[in-house]
Each structure stands twice: as C-alpha cells, then as structure tokens.
C-alpha cells in the first residue's frame, strides 16, 4: 500500500526476516504525516540512529494501536551534513527521542522545538555512540580512569 502511494520509498526485505521502507530524508515529514492521518499509525514507538561508519541511519518504528501492526521506516543520512527534518510536530513522543539521538549520535533535527542535550551535561564534548568516539581523560577535574 505504501509502495503505490510513495513511489520514491524503496522496500527492503532481507532474507533473515523483518523488512523496512527506505525513505529520502527530505520526504520523511510528508510520509509520516500521511501514515499517521491515512494509515492510522498513531504511535511512534521507537526512534533511533545507527552509526554505520560511512553514513548514519535513522530508524522509525511505528505502531498502529487500532490495527495492531508495526511498520519500520529508515532514512539514510550523509555524515557531512547529518541534518534532517524533525517529526516532533507529528508525534510529540519524537521530541525526546530526537533529543536523545542528537545527544548521543550528533544528528541534528531541523524545526525541533528544543534541541538540547538530554542525557549528558551541556558542556560534554563529542557524541559517544559514534563509532569513532574517544573517551576523554577527565571531565570537570574528575579523572575518567579507575
């Protein structure tokens, strides 16, 4: 159903099971809005990012409470810009999840109401879930070694 509606979305079905739709970053708001309004995906149950060394992947796990079925969307993101539109206007639960992804992976979300660090202190350097992250020697005068 989604394939006919959005011709740009690429369906991926790996042999091991599962499956997702690959959506271009600039189309994600449009796709999510249609999915919520017309396909009853009223809940964004999980939003997360993966650092795949060459590029980032942002994964959306949607769930429809009325039809009790899940759907997975993925967005590929170039490392140079690492900026994509926010879906927090569509599902308010995305607000904190996007903040977490920003904090730990460094992906910036445009039009986000309050994009700050959520887990780590404001003056923390770097984004720890990136594969290239190196732990600092000390933080605020406290040594990070045992």
């Amino acid at each position, binding site marked *: 159903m989604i394939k006919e509606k959005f011709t740009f979305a690429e369906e991926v079905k790996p042999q091991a099971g599962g499956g997702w739709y690959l959506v271009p970053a600039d189309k994600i708001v449009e796709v999510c809005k249609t999915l919520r309004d017309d396909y009853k995906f009223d809940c964004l149950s999980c939003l997360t990012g993966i650092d795949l060394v060459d590029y980032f992947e942002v994964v959306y796990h949607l769930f429809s409470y009325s039809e009790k079925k899940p759907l997975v969307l993925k967005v590929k993101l170039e490392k140079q810009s690492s900026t994509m539109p926010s879906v927090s206007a569509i599902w308010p639960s995305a607000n904190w999840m996007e903040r977490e992804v920003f904090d730990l992976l460094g992906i910036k979300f445009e039009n986000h109401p309050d994009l700050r660090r959520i887990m780590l*202190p404001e003056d923390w350097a770097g984004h720890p879930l990136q594969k290239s992250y190196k732990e600092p020697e000390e933080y605020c005068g406290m040594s*990070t070694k045992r």
Partner: protein
Amino acid sequence: MLTLYKQLPNFILTTKLDELLNWCRKSSVWYMLFATACCGIELMQTGGPRCDWDRFGAVPRSTPRQSDLMIIAGTISYKMAVCTRRLYDQMPDPKYVIAMGSCANCGGLFKHSYSVLKGIDKVMPVDIYVPGCPPRPEALTDGLLKLQEKMQKEKFLRS
C-alpha cells in the same frame, strides 16, 4: 567505657565526656534519604520492617542539612557527581559517608562506561566501603555497625 558502680547508692555511671558524646552520636546516626540506583531499593528494604535500622538509631532524613551520614547507594554519573559533592558540602560536621555497592566503590560493572564516575572517593572522603552488587541488607547493616565502632573511637574533644 561505662563503669557501673553498683555499690554506690542510685547506681552512678562514670565515663569520659568524649565517650559519652560519641555514644550519643553513634546511637542517632541520621542518614540522608538519597539513592541513585539499584542499591537504593536494598537501602529501602534495609530501612524496612525486616532489617529495621531504627534499632540502631538510624532513621532517614530527607534533607542533607539534618543528616550525619550519607549513603552513596548506586551509580554516580559525572553529571550527578557535581550535585553529590554539593549535597556533601551542605551536611553539617561531623559527617560520614558509606559507599554502598560496587558502583560507588570503584565503578563496578560500569567500568566500560563513558559517563560513570569510577568510585565516589574521587570526589569525597569515604569512611566505609560495602562491597556487593547490590549488598544485602545484612552487609549494609554490618557497614553501619562498623561505622558506629569508628564513631565510638573518635577523639574530637582532645584534638
């Protein structure tokens, strides 16, 4: 420490002032109701009906300004370490610290973590270390009794 003179009328007790003060202090160790992680649940159970810390005169207080003892129950992240030090500074002297559980002792399970302080003794002095992940209430009670022994031996009037 106390010497009971039974032969004298009305049972006179003699002791040293130091020891009397220490005895009073150790019998009313008020600990701060402060728990960060898993050990907090065991701390609650320890204060609960089965282990019953009230027996030793230890009752929870919710503010650092009224407490003598701080039990670091759980993992301290760097973000929290700053606040924990502030809480410690707010406590009136003489004050004591029990590091409860592996995380507070040395980081424990979270030695691989980028955001966890590896041992609370990096930011404040610790009196008693209680090992375990989490320590059982019996272990924590032993820690308290050890602390009371330590308090009894103190000589702050003479120093």
